[in-house]
């Protein structure tokens, strides 16, 4: 039993870290651009496919493929912002939300038509290997996933805090008009934010694809969950999104441990409703933008 709980603790951490990659991007896009992008999950799905094709068909090293995916889907995200969200910048929040759902429907069904509904697994270099921690065997695979996500989140933190782009980002988040006056190229910044968000989601998709499977419908729920996590952590708050992701990962993992797995999907929605009812500003009181 305790073995099972330790495994669950690790699994929760792993799924929490994947959610963190999703939620951080989601919250950046919302906090700075005031866009609720429900197509976020499809970028994650595309990341899964991109990694799969590179690894399984072109025999590219997994980690190289992951970096390439980050860049490819990042650029894709940049253009999505330019083509769809830029023209909608003055539209109401709900209209952009609807457009993003349309985009989600479009991408997921297009991939379904082109690639079929088969489930595919991405080969992972160290699959099957495990090491022993505190008497419990833990797969190397999961540890690598954890380290990679931790590295990416730290890298993002470093970019936001110390680089020129990061400063421009923060200035835009605080006051778009003032940032524009100070010479920040808002259009470029918005594109970059979207690219970062898309790239991180894509890496999450690649990692999940190596742990489980890649299929065209894999993005729907995680995209929704990213939104729920962001509400849980407080809209627009990066730290909130990280903590929210961990809580969410654990909530789901422990539900599957004690209840039937078909209830797992319900957990997120119930958390969402409870948080909104009792602490609408989120658990970690996000910067309530607007």
């Amino acid at each position, binding site marked *: 039993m305790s073995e099972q709980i330790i495994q669950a603790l690790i699994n929760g951490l792993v799924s929490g870290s994947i959610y963190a990659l999703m939620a951080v991007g989601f919250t950046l896009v919302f906090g700075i651009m005031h866009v*609720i992008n429900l197509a976020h999950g499809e970028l994650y799905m595309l990341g899964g496919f991109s990694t799969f094709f590179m690894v399984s068909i072109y025999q590219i090293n997994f980690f190289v493929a992951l970096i390439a995916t980050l860049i490819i889907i990042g650029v894709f995200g940049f253009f999505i912002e330019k083509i769809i969200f830029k023209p909608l910048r003055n539209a109401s929040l709900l*209209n952009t*939300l609807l457009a993003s759902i349309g985009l989600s429907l*479009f991408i997921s069904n*297009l991939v379904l038509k082109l690639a079929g509904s088969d489930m595919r697994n991405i080969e992972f270099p160290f699959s099957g290997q495990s090491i022993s921690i505190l008497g419990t065997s833990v797969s190397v695979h999961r540890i690598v996933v954890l380290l990679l996500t931790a590295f990416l989140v730290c890298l993002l933190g470093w970019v936001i805090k110390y680089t020129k782009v990061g400063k421009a980002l923060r200035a835009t988040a605080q006051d778009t008009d003032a940032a524009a006056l100070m010479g920040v190229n808002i259009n470029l910044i918005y594109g970059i934010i979207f690219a970062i968000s898309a790239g991180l989601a894509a890496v999450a998709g690649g990692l999940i694809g190596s742990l489980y499977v890649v299929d065209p419908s894999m993005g729907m729920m995680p995209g929704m969950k990213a939104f729920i996590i962001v509400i849980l952590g407080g809209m627009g708050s990066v730290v909130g999104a990280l903590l929210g992701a961990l809580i969410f990962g654990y909530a789901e993992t422990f539900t599957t441990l004690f209840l039937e797995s078909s*209830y797992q999907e319900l957990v997120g929605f119930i958390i969402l*409703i409870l948080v909104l009812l009792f602490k609408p500003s989120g658990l970690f009181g996000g910067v309530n933008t607007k």
Partner: protein
Amino acid sequence: MTKNLNAKKLSLIALCAIILLVIPILLGDYHVHVINQIGIFIILVTSLNLILGYTGQLSFAHIGLFAIGAYTSSILMMTYNVPFLLSLLLSMVASAFFGLLVGLIALRFTTHFFAIVTLAFGEIIRLIIYNMPDLTGGPNGIYNIPFPPNVFGLDFSQRSHFYYIILIGAVATVLFVKYMIGTRTGKAMIAVRENETFAQFIGINTWKVKMISFTLSAALAGFAGSIYAHYNSYISPYSFTMMESVTLLLMVIIGGVGTIFGPILGAAFLITLPELLRDVNEWRLVIFGALLVLTIMFMPKGLLGLFKSIQEKVKSSKKPVSNIDSGLGEEERKSVGS
């Protein structure tokens, strides 16, 4: 002049009525079937339009309330042998009841928070149906739901006969919604859509108005659900997914949100499109996704709005068309409900 106009209008209505009445006699079974589907969706999207178009609340829970109507009616009729009209009525009551419950929680929130909470409820309803196999058949759904065998002594066991039930239902729903928005409460709904804060300050109990709108639209969704179940004779949780929910929204939006005729047009368009282009059917959801994006980007007032603005341009462009959004709530005060 007005008398003339009325006579013209009346004869037009009479003409439409005659055409609608003779459709099943003139057309073959397949065409009647397509028209029946359109009719059912007209009921559904017209009811969605009440909360979305006229009250300005983006609800994703509608598909769930539709499902409740469908399941209630099927279970009542098949397991408990309740006659059709009574199970139709009870499915409306059931949907209204659950609509009331969902509304009690969801309508504490506004804009995107309302949207995501209703989305959650839509999925919760579907997942509960999925997880209650004893009552609902779980993932397998319910098969062989009967056509209503006998209503007021009339036989409805054929598609072309069922047509008249759908016709009456659709006409009644459209007329009801039209009547509703003409009432003072209906005007208050539009006021909520236009500017919720201002509405509060002229004495409109906006929460109550939204509850009324949401519950009524839920009842009508249950009505549509019951007819859908009996007509298609098969329902399962997969008939009520989020994708279907988005399709409903697209029907309202592409036709023209907040107009009586828009959703009718939208439903007819989106159901006929894949039927007309057989090869396209498989690409249905891809096309719908693209259509939703394009509609929001280029014609937020839908096809009707497009026709109107073309008409106005043809009429030697008197005034530039004012730049109004699709009428969905722009309001974001306090971001969460009061």
